[in-house]
């Protein structure tokens, strides 16, 4: 199976998080692609930190409005019901708990649901942008990421070694290998990617995983 197929399936799986009635913020990178798998008939409102609610589909170069980008810099469009506002209102919406769901990328996620996704000291510290406020204040925070980093190390760890974005904020993790819930007792393996065994996932994960049943559903 090609990597791109697996990625597609993990994104499609994460897209099931997005339910009718929600206001949703999708982080830069993989999470942004979740929008492709949300049905246009599902009544949801996408939020972008730079001051948009009701973000419309992205546009190619030739059709772009130079003044209409999302927080990741992609040219986007308006929908019936789109609103523009300033950055203070945008983050008021975040901190006041009006973002029902955010899907974020990650460098590391700990057993306790701590998230690190903004700094690799000495290598890459460009600033946190709006990630801390989303991680700390969105009603539900899930992570969508590759299971392993570029060096092949597990991103799912006992304790984050990188600077935290926010502690105890992640509810669920979607990777190309598994779907994992964060609960009081630790991390629970909920689903595994097609073609993998539970042992494959456990061997690739630097945190203990609770295995609730013998037959883990496949995505």
């Amino acid at each position, binding site marked *: 199976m090609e990597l791109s197929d697996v990625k597609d399936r993990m994104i499609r799986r994460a897209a099931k998080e997005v339910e009718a009635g929600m206001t949703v913020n999708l982080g830069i990178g993989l999470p942004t692609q979740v929008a492709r798998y949300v049905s246009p008939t599902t009544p949801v409102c996408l*939020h972008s930190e730079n001051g948009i*609610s*009701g973000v419309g589909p992205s546009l190619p170069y030739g059709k772009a409005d130079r003044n209409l980008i999302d927080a990741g810099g992609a040219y986007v469009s308006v929908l*019936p019901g789109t609103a*523009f506002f300033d950055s203070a209102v945008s983050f008021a919406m975040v901190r006041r708990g009006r973002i029902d769901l955010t899907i974020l990328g990650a460098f590391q996620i700990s057993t306790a649901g701590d998230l690190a996704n903004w700094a690799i000291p000495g290598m890459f510290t460009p600033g946190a942008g709006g990630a801390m406020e989303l991680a700390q204040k969105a009603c539900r925070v899930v992570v969508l990421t590759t299971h392993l980093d570029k060096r092949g190390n597990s991103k799912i760890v006992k304790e984050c070694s990188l600077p935290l974005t926010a502690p105890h904020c992640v509810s669920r993790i979607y990777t190309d290998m598994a779907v994992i819930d964060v609960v009081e007792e630790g991390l629970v393996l909920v689903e595994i990617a097609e073609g993998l065994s539970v042992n494959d996932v456990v061997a690739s994960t630097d945190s203990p995983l609770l295995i609730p049943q013998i037959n883990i559903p496949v995505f």
Partner: protein
Amino acid sequence: MPDKIKTIEEAISQIYDGASVMLGGFGVPGTPFCLIDELVRQGQTGLTLIKNDANEMGMGVDHLLENGQIDKLITTHIGLNSRAVNLMNDGNLEVEFCSQGILAERIRTAGAGLFGFLTDIGIDTDLAGGKKIIEVDGRRCLIETSLKADFAFIHALHADAFGNLEYSASAQNFNPLMAMAADNVIVESEFIVATGDILPNTIHTPGPFVDVVVPLVELTEEYGVVRR
């Protein structure tokens, strides 16, 4: 976008005894008279109201006071309603006065998910009584705490079903702030327009802040020009 339209009865039936309720409006403009009238009809009691003023006798807030539904009022000025003044003077209504911009800012601070702010407004006056003073960068500041509410009643000119709102002229006042600050934001709107009909740049309150939109069938006399 999600659809948030409900009937006025449904919307107001969510209010429970003892709830805190923010009411938009400065005088007549922006006051949600129809939502207030329904609250009078349903009769929930022990309420804490947060509103710039107490309207005038025979209008809006005054109906709630007359009906004995209000325990406490957080406000900036009640000089045009002698019932409110008398209830306060007789000890039958607890009134907390704020400076007008400080009330606006306390509400917005809650709406911004923050817990308080630092100001020198009123620091050498009676209104500073009981407030904590700290020194920041060599400057004495009062700590003003954020003010949230269980519910907000908002009056808009235009609303779409998702809750994007536009206000009219000076009817804006406290409405956009309260629409950010309450846990449950109930909007009455003179016109329900198709989603997309309010231009994205003209929306004063974006839909994600709003929980319920109530269409108004007709405006009561209270919304009209007052002959003085």
